[in-house]
């Protein structure tokens, strides 16, 4: 599913965020990406989402060399990927339903289709009863579940999460991780970047550790 070969990303002169990273993540796998702050976790995810282009090396997802994609192909590729942020990035002025339905709406789905899919995915994360609430009326855990629902609305084959539990307490963190496990159980490849080693231990999946831009 994901393959990187001697992947490097340099910012500025000689400052490497990633250096010679060669990893392989199979389809349907759940992988933790860990390391201290500045180890290169976020850069790795940004490269997988084609927000960045490698300085050297290769990054392939589903057989596609991401560096070679045109803008239109990048847009099309991203519709197959779900992304979850640490700070949720929910739109304050929109309801839970509007937040989750954002992309189907942009992509031209009818209201009925949007409502049906949004309801299904909110039900899956257990928030169908809060669909008319605004983000500020939700707890941190609920907000992250809404963000996960939004990432899942396109039924992606790959879900990337950057410190998704960084703003949550341990119990809520485990709850969110269980959601990612459920997502993975449906066959979706999941890559979660976190520095929370205790949480990784409790979930127990393959872990890639980054240290100063290199896989250790």
């Amino acid at each position, binding site marked *: 599913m994901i393959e990187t070969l001697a992947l490097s990303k340099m910012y500025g002169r000689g400052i490497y965020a990633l250096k010679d990273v060669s990893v392989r993540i199979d389809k349907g796998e759940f992988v933790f990406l860990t390391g201290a702050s500045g180890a290169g976790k976020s850069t790795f995810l940004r490269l997988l989402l084609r927000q960045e282009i490698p300085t050297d090396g290769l990054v392939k997802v589903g057989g596609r060399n991401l560096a070679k994609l045109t803008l239109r192909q990048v847009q099309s590729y*991203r519709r197959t990927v779900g*992304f979850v942020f640490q700070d949720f990035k929910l*739109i304050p002025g929109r309801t839970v339903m509007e937040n989750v339905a*954002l*992309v189907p709406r942009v992509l031209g789905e009818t209201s009925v289709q949007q409502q049906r899919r949004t309801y299904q995915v909110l039900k899956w994360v257990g928030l169908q009863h809060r669909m008319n609430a605004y983000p500020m009326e939700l707890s941190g855990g609920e907000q992250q579940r809404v963000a996960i629902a939004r990432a899942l609305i*396109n039924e992606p084959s790959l879900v990337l999460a950057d410190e998704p539990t960084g703003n949550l307490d341990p119990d809520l963190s485990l709850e969110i991780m269980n959601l990612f496990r459920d997502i993975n159980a449906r066959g979706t490849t999941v890559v979660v970047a976190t520095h929370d080693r205790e949480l990784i231990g409790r979930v127990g999946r393959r872990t890639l550790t980054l240290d100063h831009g290199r896989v250790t």
Partner: protein
Amino acid sequence: MHALRYCLDEAFRTLRRKPGTTLLSMLTIAVAALVLGGFLTVTVNLDRVLARWSSTAEVSVYLRDDISPDQRVALNQLLTSEPVVASRTFVSKADALGRFARDFPDLAAGLDAGAENPLPASIEVRLQPRAVEGSAAEALAQQLRRAPGVADVRYDRTWLTRLAAIVSGLRWAGWLLGAVLIVAAVLTVSTVVRLTLYTRRDEIEVMQLMGAPMGLLRGPLVTEGILHGGGGGLLALALLWMIYATVRPQLAGLLSVVGQPELVTFLPSAAAAALVAGGMVLGGLGGWLAARQVR
């Protein structure tokens, strides 16, 4: 169709959420459009006055009392062959006296009824409307002055030339001032739309990462600018109409002195539509400048 509807929905949503900055943006467009529209209204009216008065421009050819029949025929042939001549009327000495008595009865009363008529016969030559703008009319006047049997030729176009220069000057001043205000308006709209971009940055980032097409990311911002521009243009038109309605009675009163109060008009409908459309184009340009930051 879906894209258009999405862009309109999002733009109207922003307009509703930010009435203050929206109004500011519309006002700057309105000021630019009002200045342009104001100058346009003034020049359109002055153009009409100029055209009307140009069309009535005449060359008065005063004949010597001793003009011979051959000289009269030659004069008529000259006037017939000139393309700048629209029509001509012969005014005999008796007709001239009659007019004088009608227009200035007090003065005419002083004329000795038994004395010889002091007024000369003349030919009133009406020119083609566009003739006053070129040199052909002046050339004809010169030719007539040299013609045998002609005592004098009156062709005073100085005031018409001056009016034409004023109209031209006003038009340029309008465009110049308008251009400055247009730049200011576009920059203001761009700044206001950029505020939208700033407040929606998370939403736009999420949409980008989920593969939303660029057109739908930038479209609402450009549409917002177009709505600001259209609103500003309509506002300007309304203000212009109010100013026109206030000023018209005075101007019409002024022009009624010369018997042409109907010369004062509002902007032609095509120009009014162009003013609103122009506002929309300017607003769209401002929105597009802001939207270019979405990459």
